[in-house]
């Protein structure tokens, strides 16, 4: 999936708006009704909204997945539309996994799910065995929307590379790549196996303070903190 020019900029802005809304919901808890599609003030078939939802994958439904907040019909339509509009590129590990994650979340979120929400077998994780710690960090960071309360084969795969992902967290922090740091930190929180000396909680808190200018970083931090608290 590629987006260019003005359209790409619009998708980027919508990704930020959705990520910000989801991050706020994860941070503030389940007190208020959550209706992403209503807050976007757009049609469920708006191509920009669909593209943005596909970028964020299963995180579009994170308030439901993490906190059990009711999911609106509009949000199910948005997620289902995104899954249909952007089918997986089977030659790409991130595309395959994030598409699977989005459809699996739709399937779990209820009978109102779109037709695309059919439970399919998990994609393969053999790639997680090999690869340098830098490569593994890059790849798992792309798949952070799958680091949620529902375990997949990615979770033990991440746990098996915990030291390498922790090195990647250090690298991302030092590069001030806040999105990658938060994304990898989210996996470490999900797997619950960060080395004690890493100081993951403090690192994530720092990202929340200095890196939240990118709402995707804020979203990953709030998801990681929810996972560390053991919610749901």
């Amino acid at each position: 999936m590629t987006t260019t020019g003005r359209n790409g900029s619009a998708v980027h802005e919508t990704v930020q708006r959705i990520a910000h809304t989801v991050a706020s919901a994860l941070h503030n808890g389940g007190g208020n009704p959550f209706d992403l599609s209503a807050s976007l003030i757009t049609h469920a078939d708006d191509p920009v909204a669909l593209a943005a939802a596909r970028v964020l994958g299963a995180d579009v439904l994170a308030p439901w997945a993490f906190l059990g907040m009711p999911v609106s019909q509009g949000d199910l339509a948005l997620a289902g539309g995104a899954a249909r509009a952007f089918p997986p590129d089977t030659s790409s590990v991130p595309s395959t996994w994030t598409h699977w994650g989005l459809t699996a979340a739709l399937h779990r979120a209820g009978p109102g799910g779109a037709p695309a929400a059919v439970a399919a077998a998990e994609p393969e994780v053999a790639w997680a065995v090999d690869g340098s710690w830098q490569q593994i960090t890059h790849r798992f960071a792309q798949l952070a929307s799958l680091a949620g309360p529902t375990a997949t084969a990615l979770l033990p795969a991440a746990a098996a590379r915990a030291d390498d992902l922790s090195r990647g967290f250090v690298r991302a922090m030092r590069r001030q790549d806040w999105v990658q740091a938060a994304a990898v930190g989210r996996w470490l929180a999900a797997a619950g196996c960060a080395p004690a000396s890493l100081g993951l909680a403090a690192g994530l808190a720092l990202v929340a303070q200095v890196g939240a200018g990118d709402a995707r970083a804020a979203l990953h931090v709030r998801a990681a903190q929810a996972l560390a608290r053991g919610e749901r």
Partner: protein
Amino acid sequence: MTGETPKRVPRGGGADTGGAGATALMHRVGSRAVHWLEEHRGGFRAPDRGASADEVKEFFKPVGELALMGRVLTREGVAGTSQAAQMRRLLDFAWRDVLDGGGLLAWMQRGEPLSPVPLEVYTAFRELGYHHPEVERHARLMVSTRSWQALETLPSRRLGLTRHEARAELTSGTATAAALRRTWLAQTPEPWTVDYHIAYLVTHTVFHLTDWGARLDALPGDLADYLTLWLPAWVDEWREKEHWDLLGELLVVDAMLPTPAFDGTAWQRFAEAQGPDGAMPLERTRSADGDEFGTLYHPTLVAVFASTMATSRALTALNGSPS
């Protein structure tokens, strides 16, 4: 990922020596660096007559570091015959012509009785067989004062002082454990806070604690585990930033661990950064102007250190003997 496309970089790395080719590359860095040091030995020159104590101290630093590397090279015994002879000639020159057979150290002790600098320079020379009784008598007296023990220094330097005292046989070294506990490294803090300055504190804590590689078993297991876990991230950062001096020091620390990683990519880039004359630039590439010796001598000495320790540990691993 970065846009750089390193040439002739071997894939992998990891917890093996990378074989004889990698060991040869590590060894070559050191022999070329020693060659440059001998070619430029005039840079270790003695201060002019009438120089102030502070000016003299500036001359002490390179000479003291040369002696440390001479000690490492002699001790590890992995240098070639001509390389060892070059280093011995350098050390003789430094002791005789620069330090006036130790007389310059004694002169400074008389002017600044409490300064630890003369002892810090003297210890390695003493281990290499050079002696000056007056320097030792003075150091023995000052070490026994409460003022010496109360000196306000960085914890890693204080650790170094306790080791200098022990190496010069002035004390038994029992203060080492307490001095270590006060260092940054001993607290095993968050590794993502390690910046340029903290990285040097870490390397020097390990250097001092192990007497510059002479007693690798002095590194406690928990600190060895901590360094094994996080050193790859720091090596990666300073290789990417092309800061060869700090990268070299981190590669020394790697070679001091129970199971060195011998990062193939980092060593390849380190070797490629070295000039054809054997000088190692401080960072990125060599600048055409400025004080050449003043900028180059330290990273070049670090290259000797990293090369010697890594070659020694790699050969030990190849021979299968316990380290």
